[in-house]
């Protein structure tokens, strides 16, 4: 039964959802270690890669939960931007304490997520349509409000030291505070998924929503909560960027919509939901960042990074399907002799 398994069981290793993500992370790392040279492997290269992975991960990890439960969230970019704008307006333009701006930003994330969730569950429309609509509405609102209040499309802010010295600074000249936040968010998401009953519910909802309802899981509440989670993740990134650059701009953030989905899929989460792991998503973020930064150190045109990402994404989707088949079919051959 749940007796010790051998440490090296190749087949069970192959069946893990993060295996593909591990392979692609290793592959791109070795590739750019060779072509990117020593600089890529130096503190400058490694830190810029990890900084990008960490920022992306703040959004991608909660988005992964949304996707494991079978939904999509296309509103993360506008939510991030809107929460940054609200923070800069409150703490900059209006001179309120930084904590008020941070609270405002988090509130924006929670509200946007709640709207996504409540509309999706009440209307039964596909979440990608609902979140796309919410995304446009949020963008429009942020544009309108900032123009009304400041007359420009940018708001400046000087965060108080408690925030500036943690999330708004580079440690040892290289490492963003976002990395710490990334580690915390990874730990929380992993805990939820593996160690709480909510994790089981998330897998069940993504696996078969009707059966999940039948077992008594409050499906709508869980889905709404997950959208609120990705809203908070987006707001966290908005806070980080505002703290880093001392300003918020409208128009920022749209790249995170697809980048988060790409990182999640490269991380081994099935587009159909029901399967995936936070470890995989962390590796997916690192893979994504490695390609973006690695290209820079090779001296090649950065256009090639897009080709790289596109190919990796396709390979990931294909291999996710293969690994899924392997996971589903591979169980039978496994002998039972190590149990009991």
């Amino acid at each position, binding site marked *: 039964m749940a007796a010790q398994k051998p440490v090296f069981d190749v087949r069970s290793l192959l069946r893990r959802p993060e295996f593909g993500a591990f392979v692609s992370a290793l592959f791109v790392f070795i590739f750019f270690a060779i072509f990117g040279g020593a600089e890529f492997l130096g503190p400058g290269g490694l830190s810029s890669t990890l900084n990008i992975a960490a920022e992306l991960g703040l959004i991608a990890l909660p988005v992964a939960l949304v996707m494991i439960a079978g939904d999509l969230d296309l509103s993360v970019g506008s939510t991030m931007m809107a929460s940054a704008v609200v923070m800069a307006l409150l703490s900059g333009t209006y001179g309120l304490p930084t904590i008020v701006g941070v609270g405002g930003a988090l509130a924006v994330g929670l509200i946007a997520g709640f709207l996504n969730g409540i509309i999706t569950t009440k209307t039964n429309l596909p979440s990608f349509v609902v979140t796309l609509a919410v995304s446009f509405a949020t963008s429009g609102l942020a544009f309108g409000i900032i123009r009304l209040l400041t007359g420009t499309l940018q708001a400046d802010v000087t965060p108080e030291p408690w925030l500036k010295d943690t999330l708004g600074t580079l440690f040892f000249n290289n490492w963003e505070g976002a990395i710490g936040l990334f580690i915390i968010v990874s730990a929380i998401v992993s805990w939820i998924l593996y160690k709480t009953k909510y994790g089981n519910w998330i897998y069940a909802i993504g696996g078969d929503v009707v059966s*999940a309802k039948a*077992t008594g899981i409050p499906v709508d509440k869980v889905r709404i909560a997950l959208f609120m989670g990705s809203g908070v993740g987006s707001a966290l990134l908005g806070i980080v960027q505002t703290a880093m650059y001392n300003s918020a701009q409208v128009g920022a953030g749209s790249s995170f919509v697809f980048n988060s989905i790409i990182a999640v899929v490269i991380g081994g989460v099935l587009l159909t939901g029901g399967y995936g792991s936070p470890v995989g998503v962390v590796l997916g973020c690192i893979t994504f960042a490695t390609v973006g930064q690695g290209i820079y150190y090779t001296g090649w045109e950065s256009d090639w990074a897009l080709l790289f990402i596109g190919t990796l994404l396709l390979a990931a989707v294909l291999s996710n399907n293969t690994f899924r088949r392997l996971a589903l079919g591979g169980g039978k051959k496994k002998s039972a002799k190590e149990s009991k």
Partner: protein
Amino acid sequence: MAKSTSKPIFSLKNVTKDFAGYKALNDVSLEVYPGQVLCLLGDNGAGKSTLIKVLSGFHKPTEGTVQWEGENVEFKSPKDANDRGVATVHQFGGTFPLMSVGRSFFVGLEPTKGWGPFKRFDKKYANQVAVREMQALGITRVTDGERLIGSLSGGERQASAIARAVHFGAKVLILDEPTAALGVKEATHVLRIIMQAKHKGIAVILVTHNVSHALTVGDHFAVLIRGEKADDFKKGERTREQITDLMAGGEAMAELENELNTLTGTINQIH
């Protein structure tokens, strides 16, 4: 009337279910007894799944009432029905292919260990119990709770769903075509498990197209035709032919029989 010694645990009184003007169920009354297998028969689209969705709290009846242990109830949600002891394995699944045996066994009723913020899902216990309960139903090939449900055979999957219902003390077990996609051996095994559940005193509602399967385990039968209850009888009260006839829609079959008779008639004349 079924066994006079026991009262129905669950019954429908004149239930109608209207989908935007289309009556998927029309004035259906039905009684379910503990320790008996009720077979729900009928052609595709007859309303079988709709009926069990009313019983399991997915649909509210448009008209009529549901009674639980003799009292009127209105299930607000599937969870509501579940809490009373109605366990349902829905058609096309009812299990989670990409979840482990242990995890899926406890979906919605997860065992935890620890306390406060450290309360966590007890995976080891979940795996052990799931495997033990499946073994108790004769599924001896499943020994590892970490295996994915999708790697089990169809019969093993049904067994895991039934084992779950039995473990959590279901009083009524509803199975929507559990043997539909199974080979002979697997189907036989599932039928045997249904008998085991019945002998534990559970009321089983079995939806099936297969008359042989129904006759093997059924104590009580109800036939639906286009949303209406066409017949309701106990074991031994109808022949296999009569049941097959009814299931195919009664009159349509009679017409076909007439046609066939004229055909065979001509053939007989030739000979």
